[in-house]
């Protein structure tokens, strides 16, 4: 057993970090959310480097790497608060690859892999509409609801901008045209998407922790850095515990998705619960460590916090996953 990235996997992580550092600052994230920046610089780099097809099979035009590699890309993009264009497209590809039939795979996967006909992820609402991130400009929407997934061509849908909590992404309400159900194992496919989403949350949590630690080292009060106080430093230590626990859980779930799929429901639930809790606690904790400056509009703390809340409640919430874990032990509302 070796629970550690390979050199190739480290290279993936480093390449994404470098790309984000040079191409996507939090100024970009703000600009993208409010429509001042179209986010295309980062997207085109991701397309040009082939990252859009990282986990799509070579048969369908992708790189055929694993879910571990995909989560490393997602973590880096989460850290940078990147738009959902990459994540939504990767989610669409995973759903069609895992639950679509041959015709659906043939029609869509190649475009998702190359990034030329991008997919977006939406969640079906009770009223028959869907909520989706960064859907404008996509070729197709893959829609999920408990136990169901479907795909819709974007040109048959209408989009209406909606006020999202996460202001680094563009939330739209989608009026759907014709939808085409994915009839394979939807639950397993959604679990894979949860793992990618959890990886983004690990990136968010890690960034929030880094900002808090930096502030605790440099901010002077009473003539010394505030990080000398245990009320502050222990809060940071707890962030480390949360971040590393979530990272371990996400890496394990990603590996499990490719190598031990029958164990994926448990591993994916552990990953989502750990990542959602980690992101919430580190982003709120980071805002607190920053004090007043952390509560200003100009500081990034609230961008991270908003992302943590919104992504934490996208797909299955922590409560939903805790109930699934409990049910595996014969407990909870779903128990016999």
């Amino acid at each position, binding site marked *: 057993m070796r629970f550690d990235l390979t050199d190739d996997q480290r290279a993936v992580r480093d390449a994404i970090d470098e790309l984000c550092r040079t191409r996507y600052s939090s100024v970009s994230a703000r600009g993208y959310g409010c429509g001042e920046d179209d986010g295309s610089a980062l997207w085109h780099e991701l397309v040009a480097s082939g990252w859009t097809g990282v986990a799509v099979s070579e048969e369908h035009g992708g790189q055929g790497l694993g879910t571990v590699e995909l989560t490393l890309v997602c973590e880096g993009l989460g850290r940078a608060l990147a738009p959902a264009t990459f994540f939504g497209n990767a989610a669409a590809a995973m759903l069609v690859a895992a639950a679509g039939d041959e015709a659906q795979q043939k029609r869509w996967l190649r475009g998702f892999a190359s990034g030329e006909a991008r997919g977006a992820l939406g969640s079906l609402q009770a009223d028959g509409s869907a909520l989706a991130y960064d859907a404008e400009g996509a070729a197709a929407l893959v829609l999920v609801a408990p136990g169901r997934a479907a795909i819709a061509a974007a040109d048959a849908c209408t989009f209406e901008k909606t006020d999202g909590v996460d202001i680094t992404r563009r939330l739209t309400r989608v009026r759907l045209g014709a939808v085409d159900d994915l009839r394979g194992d939807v639950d397993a496919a959604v679990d894979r998407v949860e793992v990618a989403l959890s990886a983004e949350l690990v990136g968010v949590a890690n960034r929030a922790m880094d900002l808090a630690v930096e502030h605790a080292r440099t901010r002077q009060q009473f003539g010394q850095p505030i990080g000398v106080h245990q009320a502050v430093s222990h809060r940071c230590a707890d962030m480390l*515990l949360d971040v590393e626990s979530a990272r371990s859980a996400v890496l394990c779930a990603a*590996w*499990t998705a490719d190598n031990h799929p029958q164990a994926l429901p448990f591993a994916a639930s552990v990953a989502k619960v750990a990542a959602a809790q980690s992101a919430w606690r580190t982003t709120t904790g980071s805002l607190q460590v920053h004090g007043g400056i952390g509560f200003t509009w100009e500081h990034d703390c609230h961008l991270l916090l908003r992302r943590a809340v919104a992504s934490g409640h996208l797909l299955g919430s922590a409560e939903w996953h805790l109930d699934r874990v409990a049910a595996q032990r014969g407990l909870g509302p779903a128990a016999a």
Partner: protein
Amino acid sequence: MDLSLTPAELAFRDELREWLVAHHPGPDPADTEGSIDHRLGWQRTLFDAGYSGISWPREHGGRGATLMEQAIFNEELVRARAPSPANVIGLVMGGPVIITHGTDDQRARFLAPILSGEEIWCQGFSEPNAGSDLAALTTQAVRDDNGWRINGQKVWTSFAHRATWCMLLAKTGGGDRHRNLTFFICNMKQPGVEVRPLRQATGDSEFNEIFFNDARVPDENVVGAVGDGWKVAITTLMFERAGLSAASALAIQLKLDELAELIRARGRQHDVTLSRRLSALVVATETMRLNGYRGLSRVIEHGVPGPEGSLAKIQWADINQRIGELAMDVLGGEALVTDPVWTRWMLRARANSIEGGTSEIQRNILAERVLNLPRMR
């Protein structure tokens, strides 16, 4: 990254599993002394089969297996509900310290009886006025013509009443408190050493106080150089934390199975509050297990345990305490009556965030040594 066992690891595990079925020693007696006797016999059985000192080098009498195989061994013992060997302090700390810092003579003298369980070891670090601030200890070692004379008091010492040897940290000079300590191997069976049991909050006596009154230690029982005791002791503390968390996590999962059973037995399986508290613990325990294996992979790559061991230590204490609280809430009104399993668990877990370095000290370590936050004054 590969979370499956290698063919060699798999072969090691399967052979061990089969062996455990044939040689399982039966359940651990409930009383502390009976349990030590039982586990001593068990250690001898393990030793005779080549399962003592799994990751110790062959030249020092160990099995020469990898740290990963050591972790697999620890997990399999838990899975089979077999006890851990009695001389755990010697196996996890004493032996590795002598292998790392000891002389050839010390290795020849001390290692074999640690492995067989013939000589039990204990650890004399903490004192009444030196707990978290270990370097503030006051036990004195004074050099004279016949070696060293020891005076002072140690506390919270497991196995002291059964031990032959004590890893003793004592003051040997003035000045910098991290440079005036020396690490001794002190014979416990001598007139100058008095052991008194310490009764703890659970009512049990797992620990002791040791009083040193002109106890003697010969020169050849100094480990490392005189004045280097702090450095040597830190190694033992690192070894204490490394490599045990995966097996501890498995033990907790088994306990959580019992707690789930208790919830069902009380007819409260549909109670969402209880079920979510339980599944949150299942999730936390799984991340602790994974952190343990990730940490272990790092140790294997970098050679030494790192401060990351503090992560698992904090998680372990927190999870055990939450299990105790949840069990009391499941018992409800029955929590007034002493329950042989859960009352003891609830009380005993309160020590988990104190023993082996308090959770606050662990957070200091993470803050200062991993996050590079400024050191507390």
